[in-house]
């Protein structure tokens, strides 16, 4: 099941979704076995911003019958901490490293990209655009013009593949994807979490420390499939599909919808090695359905 994404050769098409697997923490917990049995074909790190961020106050989690609402709020050591502490450890992983970055202004995004532009440890960059541009107030990844302007500015800063992680909370996601493609994105990834909310069952106040949160897991699977399908029809560049993947069949659906890679997110929480099982199931299904996949 080897596959290629923007010239990167991968052993299979299953990677992790940003922010749903901390390989450094997992190595402390699971030791060498994590590396020996590393479940992802590439590793995507959690979103890094320029400045350190604490993230949202707890509680940060709300479970639903078919998913999770999180208001983690992108805690990060910031660029400097990441470069100094995390990157050396992540560089030891047995798979290519994709660094996910986010900035609140185009200048910030530029600075982040420049910082990784020539890092040999880093194979590709993923740009999280699900946050507002603090200068315009518009969510960068929800508005085609906003995103074009951003990418035209930052795309020239690196030769590495630049994956744009789209926001699913947009009127016309394929239009945003097309704008990304025209402005030089190497690939797009989707979906990020859907905006969601939970109230305290007794008090009725918002449960999550951040007020609202992002929905992930099986609940979003069919929404993800629709968006991946529509985006894959709209662009020529590769698509990384994610959202509620729990089984090989879910991964197969995203590949059939046009994705080149599939990312596993929330399911990692239910089983740290879920991606290995999903990859095995996918491989079995590939065998069974080769005609449709060639």
């Amino acid at each position, binding site marked *: 099941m080897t596959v290629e994404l923007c010239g990167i050769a991968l052993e299979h098409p299953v990677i992790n979704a940003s*922010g*749903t*697997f*901390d390989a*450094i*923490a*997992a190595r*402390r*917990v*699971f*030791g*060498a*076995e*994590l590396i020996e*049995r590393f479940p992802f074909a590439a590793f995507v790190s*959690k979103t890094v911003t320029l400045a350190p961020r*604490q*993230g949202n*106050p*707890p*509680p*940060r*989690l709300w*479970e*639903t*019958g*078919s*998913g*999770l609402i*999180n208001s*983690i709020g992108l*805690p990060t050591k910031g660029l400097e901490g990441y470069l100094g502490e995390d990157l050396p450890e992540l560089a030891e992983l047995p798979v290519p490293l994709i660094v996910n970055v986010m900035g609140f202004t185009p200048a910030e995004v530029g600075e982040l990209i420049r910082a990784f532009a020539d890092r040999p440890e880093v194979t590709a960059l993923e740009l999280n655009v699900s946050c507002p541009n603090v200068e315009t107030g518009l969510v960068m990844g929800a508005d085609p013009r906003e995103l074009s302007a951003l990418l035209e500015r930052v795309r020239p800063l690196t030769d590495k593949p630049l994956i744009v992680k789209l926001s699913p909370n947009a009127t016309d996601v394929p239009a945003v994807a097309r704008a990304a493609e025209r402005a030089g994105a190497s690939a797009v990834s989707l979906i990020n979490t859907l905006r969601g909310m939970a109230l305290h069952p007794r008090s009725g106040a918002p*449960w999550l*420390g951040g007020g609202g949160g992002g929905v992930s*897991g*099986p609940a979003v699977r069919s929404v993800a499939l629709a968006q991946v399908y529509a985006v894959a029809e709209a662009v020529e560049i590769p698509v990384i599909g994610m959202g509620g993947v729990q089984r090989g069949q879910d991964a197969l659906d995203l590949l059939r919808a046009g994705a080149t890679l599939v990312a596993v997110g*929330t399911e*990692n*929480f*239910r*089983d*740290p*090695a*879920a991606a*290995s099982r999903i990859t095995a199931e996918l491989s079995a299904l590939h065998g069974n359905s080769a005609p449709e996949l060639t």
Partner: protein
Amino acid sequence: MSAGPAASAGPAPRAAPTAHAAPAASAAPAASAVRTPAPFGRRAVAVTARERHGAYTLLRCEDAGGPRPRAGQFYMLSAAERWGGGDGERPFLPRAFSVLRAPAEDRRLDFLLEDVGPGTRRLDELRPGDRLHVVGPLGNGFEPPRERRRALLVGGGVGIAPLAIWQDQLEDSTRPLLGFRDRARAAAAGLVSSARVATDDGSFGHHGVVTDLMRQEIAGRESEIEVYACGPPAMLEAVRAVCAELAIPAQLALEAGMACGFGACFGCVVPTRAGLVRLCLDGPVLDADRLESALLPGTGH
């Protein structure tokens, strides 16, 4: 060494006392800390027994594939079937449970559950022969008492679980103090040896809270005691406040909502004086002096 980890502490007992030279770092995420690694991935184990102890359920399983846990460590549990559903209902994510008991000589793991919601209710349905998914052992576990101090175990409700295994592993400790809501719940006190019990309603043992007993027990021995506490947030906060007042070191086994248990989600953070830390990774045992308060948002029922 009067209070080192018993031989049963696990295959890789830490050279613990030295770690205590700088107490603030004792529970900190030193990347170099020697941990017993958990097997990667969740594994299915067989439930071998289920017993009721007062208002709580003891669930025993046979963990052939895993290492022995340290006292204070926890596992993420989920039933192998019907987890993620039932009329589209929770539980969906696994749940965290402290080890109650894990004798070194076999592969047994005991957990003590209080039925407070859909996850604990589902686990409470399991019977010998049913299958359970486990990930673990996870978290840091208790550190042995600082030199010249003896362990005083203080627990409340289902929070007695990690104290039982800690009592098993400690060579020596003073009489444990346990608090319960009422007599029915206090029936679980037998899981810890020779404990003194307080109940909120006076239906068994001392009529009042466990910190009453704690003040009596400590009085005049402030420099000889290290407290190990686990229980509901209000109790832990009372313990923390007493220990702070009396300048007694305390290790608190805390709880927070967890999605993963292995540092992946950043969901289980608790506020410490030095900022938010992931409880599943840097805890669940934290030195009390790292906390402003043990009353954490989103915990308790």
